[in-house]
């Protein structure tokens, strides 16, 4: 498809362009585009280079971080892991734990629900679909006060599920993402032909076997997309995480790094920058690695 599209203008271009026409002509056709491209790259990449340079500036304050790569050292990275009030290592592990658990569990719960909506016909199915659609209109974020109070009273009875519990946070995320996830998956499940199920049924497979061994494999792409989306949204959430996770050793990167900046903004800038670099690298690596798929899937409705 894309080769078809790209092929034609290229052919036309070579038709229009004589072998070499000098700088003026070159600039008029593509040169100015490179100019914009360079400006774009500076705009896009500069803040990232800045934070990298700041992180390599040993013991730098905000002011001394302005020297761009003038001094290079890894002191800030060492200091980052030695600060006991701000346990960066723990934040990192917590974020991974919460993100991965949320992603895995919400993929699983969403797939179960999508399977039944897509493959079974039952009373209340349409009502169920419509209410899912309506429920996901209301962002869970807005109910953060109620979530806080609910978990406070739950924690009075079961401390494991109260404020400052990561399990409670994961449960909250699971509830909030289910509507959207089920919907995304439902659409994809519908593209898998029902004939496959029917053939398996005739061969004697039960619904559980059909679901776990066949359907889940056929819908693997949407499982990956939903997993990635819920991983990203749960690791970058600040509102609910900051309300629920109180003690520093339980917090996530978003909450922890914010406290770094909000409490000692200018003096510890390079340590924060080191933390930012380490926190961003995995996500960015994943992103660039999956670039092709994400770009393809963007038009399917992911938003930022």
């Amino acid at each position, binding site marked *: 498809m894309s080769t078809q*599209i790209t092929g034609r*203008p290229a052919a036309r271009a070579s038709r229009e362009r004589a072998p070499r026409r000098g700088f003026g002509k070159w600039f008029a056709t*593509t040169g100015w585009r490179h100019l*914009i*491209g360079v400006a*774009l*790259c500076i705009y*896009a990449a500069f*803040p*990232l280079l800045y*934070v990298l340079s*700041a992180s390599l500036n040993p013991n730098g*304050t*905000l002011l001394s971080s302005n020297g761009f790569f003038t001094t290079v050292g890894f002191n800030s990275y060492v200091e980052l892991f030695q600060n006991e009030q701000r346990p960066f290592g723990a934040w990192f592990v917590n974020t991974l734990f919460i993100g991965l658990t949320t992603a895995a569990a919400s993929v*699983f719960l*969403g797939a*179960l*629900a999508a*399977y*039944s909506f897509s493959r*079974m016909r039952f009373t209340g199915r349409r009502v169920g679909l419509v209410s899912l659609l309506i429920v996901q209109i209301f*962002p*869970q*974020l*807005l*109910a*953060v*006060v*109620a979530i*806080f*109070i*609910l978990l406070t009273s739950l924690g*009075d*009875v*079961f401390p494991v599920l109260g404020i400052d519990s990561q399990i409670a946070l994961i*449960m909250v995320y699971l*509830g*909030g993402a289910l*509507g959207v996830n089920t919907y995304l998956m439902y659409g994809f499940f519908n593209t898998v032909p029902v004939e496959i199920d029917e053939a398996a049924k005739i061969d004697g497979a039960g*619904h*559980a*076997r059909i679901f*776990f*061994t066949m359907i889940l*494999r056929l819908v693997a792409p949407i499982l990956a997309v939903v997993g990635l989306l819920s991983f990203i949204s749960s690791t970058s959430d*600040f509102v609910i995480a900051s309300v629920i996770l109180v003690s520093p050793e339980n917090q996530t990167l*978003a909450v922890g*790094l*914010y406290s770094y*900046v909000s409490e000692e903004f200018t003096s510890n*800038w390079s340590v*924060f920058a080191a933390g*930012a670099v380490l926190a*961003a690298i995995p996500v*960015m690596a994943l*992103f660039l690695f999956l670039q092709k798929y994400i770009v393809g899937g*963007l*038009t399917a*409705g992911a*938003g930022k």
Partner: protein
Amino acid sequence: MTKTAHQGPQSSTEERKPKLSPAARRFANATSTSVGAMLAKIILVAIVDATAIFAVFTALGREAWVIASAIAVITVLINVIYFKRGWLPAKYLLPGTIFLLIFQVFVIGYTGYIAFTNYGSGHNSDKDDAITALLQSNQNRVEGSAGYPVSILDGQDGLAMLIERDGQQMLGDADKPFAPVDPAALGDYSELAFGDLLGRQQEVTSLTVPVSENPADGTLRTSDGRTAYQYTSSLKYDEAADTMTDQKTGVVYQDTGVGAYTAEDGTQLMPGWSINVGFDNFTRAVTDSSIRNALFSVTVWTFAFAFLSVATTFFLGLFLAIVFNDMRMKGRKIYRVISILPYAFPAFLGGLVWAGMLNRDFGFINQVLLGGAQIPWLTDPWLAKFSVLWVNLWLGFPYMFLVCTGALQSIPDELSEAATLDGAKPFQIFRLIKLPLLLVSVAPLLISSFAFNFNNFNVIYMLTEGGPRLQDAGLNVGSTDILISMVYKVAFVGSQRDYGLASAFSIIIFVIVAIISIISFKQTKALEELN
């Protein structure tokens, strides 16, 4: 997952065990007919039931009736659904539905309830707790009372106090009043020596142990770790009349229905308790001018922010897509990869990094690019609004760039070729043919982008924390605050936390969101496509 088809269901679940949660195994087994699968199901549900029964009794022990009955209902539901034949869809829907109902549906309804209370700082609990807290605070030493010889013990739950009364050893700590203690149990504690007492002096002097279950009996405190004195509250609670009397001043405080004991001159004893205040929060939001103006300006800015964010990111993205959509140009891939880097960078970090760069005194922009200028990027109301949009543009344009590139490339070339043959100029082709087609395919994404930015808490809060603060507002609200960050700040930032008012704001936002959604649903007719 590479099992062969003739294996029994149970052995297959054994294989998958590390990958699947208990719920998964339960499902895999749920309707298979083999005995093994049935057994596995029974065991799993039994585990759920055992946990639930334990939980119910714990809840009953703490007199949490609502929680206990909620757990009981859910457990009964699980048992019925998984042991009843048929009801297959329910077996698949139940696990997700439980989470959805509690943490999405219930909390939204609960928000509605809280909006009608005065829940917040000073009104955190019920009346009994407030009475206990009042009697425990405001305490003075009972005049002329004899000192109790005490020893301070260090245990697992922190410091405890040991006294001897009527020939019996009594132990108590900050949470538990004095109770007779078995000498053998004292082995778990170690007595603080003199040196320890000095080292932990602050802990020791702040230790207050209730004398008995009745808060009116007061507490024991010690200043030296050797002798403790009885302290009682200067307040006296009259249960029959439901009044608090300050025994020093003689002022009588009554429960006048505002959620705190109130004297005749209007002074209140804090803490109070949470009560139902009806539409009070909503009325305040509309009639109190300091709140109303803040709410109004925040609402306007929320719409402006969401709209301008979508508009700026879309137009920059579209412009770039057009510029780089020329096949003659070399190196487009490199440009594209570099330009999507901001999209891959976590948004909350983007806000924090830009907050440093835009800092007025030390930031890179002012110090290096503008040669030491003191431009208040984040502290001037209008410049802060501009900065927020600027940073959101940085975070968001790659998305629109990618989307527009995709949409442009999917427009068939025949259309523009035909238009060229008919004599259309390139700009006409773009405006009259490509742009309308592009808008059709990206319109839903623009709407969802608007919805996303409507609640884009991270970029606002990380960059400016909503500031600079609005001068005339009666709340901690700033000029870049959007609705969601206002809710957050009213409820969780600062010393005055007003959960009731924050929930009322939430409800107002819910209504706004619902209206927008109804309109956009009518436009897209998404509901009719369901089948």
